[in-house]
């Protein structure tokens, strides 16, 4: 009902705006010189029509009704928005975040006592339980609206149930708390590694492992005063798993001859045993390993060089060398490089060998001139998720030690 009513309000407003004499957005942009999304003048331009331009046009048309100046609305429309809680009162000009409603939505999959299952179509996420937990818990954490301690304890138990052990072969010298050179001797032994998978009895997987560790970290990092038992439970679980995680990570190594002048070794990582190698795995492993302080030199060996090979001629990063520059993979690559360069004591990201200038140029060009949001690849469509992937990448660059900092338009 609320979606329909908002849409009705917005469409009626658009109809009205075509007939009123309020200062148009494009004129405002000229006067203030600031970027204002939804300015017709900055819709995408083309001299040739093709599938790309058609899809882009359709998207711009769909987005257009949502770029409304609240100040220019008539009193009835404003009252509608006020009733929905989207604006504070008739004098407001900013949309409010509906915190309680978002929190209620996020809490749905986490019901503990009144068992509420997700609809049948969610079977496609049956191998992604830790993701559902992490997405919702992280959202609630940002909203300062975490569930009660019983629910958090339940989550820790659920995540523990997603843990599986796997037989691995490790270099006998690969220890958790020491920095050992992996090339010293090839003696290997059987060991038990492990990680968090998508559900009970599922193989450990880098992505679900990342999600599970992050979710546990949120709980472990809770104010001990508020959630004493849950925080302790989560922290203990993470501590117990450090050793196994390192062994499992090492067993995912995919070493190869680097595509560089010297032909020196570079190392990608698989997402799972007998699984695909791409830069997501490198990031997930870097992130978890640095959180849990198991980012050993064995693990890092060849990692950075592999990531750098994933940078394309466009400046962004793809999932594998030569794969198309893509917002999601760029975030992963950049996150990994940031962690690695810091761990290696490097002064800045450029020391990794990546082309900082080309990356920066590619990133800023992912912002859409009309919509204001970001696309994931050149000549593709805007999508809210890329506000995170690309927006975060831009933020990461701002953390770089050099003076080349800026925030996005």
């Amino acid at each position, binding site marked *: 009902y609320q979606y329909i009513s908002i849409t009705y309000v917005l469409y009626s407003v658009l109809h009205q705006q075509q007939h009123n004499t309020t200062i148009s957005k494009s004129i405002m942009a000229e006067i203030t010189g600031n970027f204002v999304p939804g300015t017709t003048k900055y819709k995408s331009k083309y001299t040739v029509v093709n599938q*790309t331009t058609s899809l882009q046009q359709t998207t711009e048309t769909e987005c257009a009704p949502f770029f409304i100046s609240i100040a220019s609305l008539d009193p009835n429309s404003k009252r509608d928005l006020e009733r929905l809680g989207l604006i504070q009162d008739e004098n407001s000009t900013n949309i409010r975040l509906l915190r309680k409603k978002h929190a209620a939505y996020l809490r749905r999959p986490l019901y503990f006592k009144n068992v509420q299952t997700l609809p049948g179509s969610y079977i496609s996420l049956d191998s992604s339980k830790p993701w559902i937990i992490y997405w919702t818990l992280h959202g609630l954490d940002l909203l300062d609206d975490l569930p009660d301690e019983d629910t958090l304890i339940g989550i820790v138990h659920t995540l523990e149930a997603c843990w599986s052990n796997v037989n691995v072969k490790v270099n006998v010298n690969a220890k958790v708390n020491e920095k050992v050179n992996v090339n010293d001797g090839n003696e290997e032994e059987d060991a038990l590694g492990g990680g968090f998978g*998508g559900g009970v009895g599922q193989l450990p997987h880098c992505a679900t492992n990342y999600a599970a560790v992050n979710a546990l970290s949120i709980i472990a990092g809770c104010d001990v005063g508020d959630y004493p038992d849950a925080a302790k439970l989560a922290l203990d679980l993470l501590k117990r798993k450090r050793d196994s995680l390192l062994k499992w990570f090492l067993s995912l190594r995919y070493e190869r001859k680097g*595509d560089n002048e010297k032909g020196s070794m570079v190392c990608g990582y698989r997402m799972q045993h*007998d699984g695909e190698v791409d830069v997501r795995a490198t990031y997930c492993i870097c992130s978890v390993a640095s959180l849990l302080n198991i980012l050993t030199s064995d693990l890092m060996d060849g990692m950075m060089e592999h990531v750098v090979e994933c940078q394309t001629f466009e400046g962004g990063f793809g999932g*594998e060398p030569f*794969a*198309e520059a893509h917002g999601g993979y760029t975030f992963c690559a950049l996150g990994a490089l940031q962690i690695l360069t810091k761990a290696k004591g490097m002064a800045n990201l450029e020391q990794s060998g990546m082309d900082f200038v080309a990356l920066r*140029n590619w990133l800023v060009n992912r912002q859409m001139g009309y919509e204001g949001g970001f696309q994931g*690849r050149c000549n593709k469509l805007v999508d809210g998720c890329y506000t995170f992937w690309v927006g975060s990448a831009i933020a990461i660059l701002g953390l770089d030690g050099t003076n080349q900092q800026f925030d996005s*338009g």
Partner: protein
Amino acid sequence: MNFPTFDIPERALELTALCLRFNPANYTTWWFRRQCLASLSTPPTSDFESKYTYFSENFIANDLMLASKLGGSNPKNYQVWYHRRNLLEQSFSDMTSDSDTECGSVLELVNEELEYIAGVLDKDSKNYHAWSHRQWILKIINMESKWTAEIEYINDLLEADVRNNSAWNQRWLVSHRGSKSKPFPVEAASEEVNFVISKAREDPYNESPWRYFVALIKEQFRLIASSPEFVSLVDTCENALKEVKEKFELESKKDGMECTHLIAAHIDILEMKGDEDSLSSAVEFAILLESRYDPVRKKYWKLRAQQLQVVAN
């Protein structure tokens, strides 16, 4: 993983196929299925050794079909595409000869697979997994005839949609024969530039060719900066770019500065030229983009102008 051992892997295979219909994203089921297939496959010789898993021919054929069936409604599923790759790794890595006649059945498999991918791309010309799989095949077989055939395929895609950035990306892979470390000859760069300019001319607003254009020149800049060959290349490129802009303004009666990616490319060229006049032109262009033509990237262009000014001084 401590799975119970199955005495009847054939039955386990059947079960995995059933399970995968419910959830083709269950990566554990795929992994387990491959364990069963491998255990039922007998390598050609008793001392057969390979870093890749060996699957017998009929299993490969059958499971490619299974993957196609499941992949149809799930074109963006990682596991289905990886299954195809894993099935084919052993036989594709075996191809060392470039002679079309010597590889027989494996070559047939290569062609079928490339055709399958083309079919997927026909429905979604930018499917990331499809392109990734295609790139893997071309790199692992490394056949000159396939590289050259791919250029034709890319050209067809660009004819249909000159803004297909995935096709542009593929062109970079193919022209470089899958290598980042082998120096790209300046003659090849010149040829590529001609092609790119012809495409940029079709729609000067299009970002893809201008990005490719700048990358080609930058690559040569890194290899042979300040050599007469580079100077000649840069001059040719700058003239070609100016010509595109002039022609656009003549035909459309519009302001060529609106083609912000063309202007951005020009700024990059001027920066590489590096002389005082070029740099001050570059600063001017950057300021125009910042203040008027590319407001969403206002702060970026301001920074760029500042940095160029510093170099100019």
